[in-house]
């Protein structure tokens, strides 16, 4: 299965690609989008320190030599970017870019684009869902689903897992803990897809959309997380 990791940071993309390629049958390309338009060598030099510090420098060069890093100077919605993605004929896209995808982008990947959401769907859609889960006494967790143009409303859920948060942590620590599991979750999701696992339906009417939390309640969650 040919998979494209959509990102704006080489190191993150390489980390995810390396993890999902642990699946036999998955070949991953890293699609790096930099709409600010700086040249690839400049971008690479800028990221070398970051790559080295994340211990993915060697992996990145190896991937680059194999032609598995594609660099885009235009945004993902630009026609030239779309055309280039379509030509690659990816079966699945993996989301690691801070954008809302429009339909033509989603359709450029055969089965769609996967998103790793740090909340349990369908109940927790939107922002600050890890904090809201804690505040409402619900399990924290991660859901991997195929996105649509809405906010966490994609109809097909590939997998969801409850992930208990470590005790005595901060909100920042809690979110990092959940976000850092994205590569592992994508790998599991692709395994499930390759194995023909039936998909769950994201019944959006059984959940709510959440918004950024006020400082007042963030303080409550912070105390709760640290207790």
């Amino acid at each position, binding site marked *: 299965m040919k998979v494209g990791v959509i990102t704006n940071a080489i190191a993150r993309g390489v980390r995810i690609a390396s993890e999902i390629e642990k699946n036999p049958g998955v070949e991953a390309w890293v699609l790096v989008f930099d709409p600010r338009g700086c040249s690839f060598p400049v971008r690479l030099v800028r990221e070398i320190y970051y790559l080295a510090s994340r211990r993915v420098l060697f992996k990145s060069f190896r991937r680059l030599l194999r032609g598995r890093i594609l660099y885009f100077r235009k945004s993902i919605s630009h026609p030239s970017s779309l055309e280039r993605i379509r030509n690659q004929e990816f079966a699945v896209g993996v989301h690691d870019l801070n954008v809302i995808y429009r339909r033509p982008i989603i359709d450029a990947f055969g089965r769609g684009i996967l998103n790793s959401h740090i909340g349990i769907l369908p109940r927790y859609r939107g922002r600050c869902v890890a904090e809201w889960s804690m505040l409402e006494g619900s399990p924290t967790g991660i859901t991997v689903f195929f996105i649509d143009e809405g906010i966490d409303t994609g109809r097909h859920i590939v997998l969801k897992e409850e992930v208990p948060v470590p005790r005595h942590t901060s909100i920042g620590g809690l979110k990092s803990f959940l976000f850092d599991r994205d590569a592992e979750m994508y790998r599991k999701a692709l395994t499930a897809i390759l194995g023909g696992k039936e998909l769950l339906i994201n*019944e959006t009417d*059984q*959940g709510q959309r959440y918004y950024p939390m006020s400082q007042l*309640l963030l303080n409550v969650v912070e105390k709760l997380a640290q207790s």
Partner: protein
Amino acid sequence: MTRRVELDIDAFPAPSGNLTNLLREALKARRNEVEEQFKQFHLNSLRPELDEIALVIGKQRTAISVAQEISWCESVLDIEFVLLAAAADKPIVVIPGHSSVDAGPATIRKNETLLGINRILQRYSCPLNIIQPSERKFFEECLRYLMVVDRVQPVEPIEERLRWLLLSLVSLRCRAVRDIRALDVLNYFWERLSRPLPASTFVCSFFGNYDAALERNL
């Protein structure tokens, strides 16, 4: 192949005692601040007739309070007055409505602000209607409009008026329906308000109803 998954959203564990205490303390502290701010508004200078509302009651019309179950109704007075009366805990004079319950929720569309305001003002000529279960969809749209784009930044006067109107409606519903998620939208705005505040009826009614909503959720 897909399968439907039923998820009971009330099936999750209830908040622990520690969480309840932390929440109550936080909301209580916020309520003191909001109450103080509300006191600074001179209701009668904004609408002198507010204290005379009792004179209007009893003339073949119905007076109801925010807490009551209501059927679709229309107000005898304008929306600003009714919001203010609700904020001041005065009974609200209404007449049975015959209007657009079946017309679907009002919508707030981008680049259509003026039209949006007029449509909302017409539909919620009696703002108490926002409390009805049938208005949940519109209420969700209010939250989305307020929170998706950062509406806290300075905006055009017309949009400013829409924002205060929506905040007033949200606060009115929050004092009748226990919903910490919606209440937190008000918390979020409170923390970002630029002072000094304009002395308008919508602003005043927002504070009064926000204060009552905090008390309701304590």
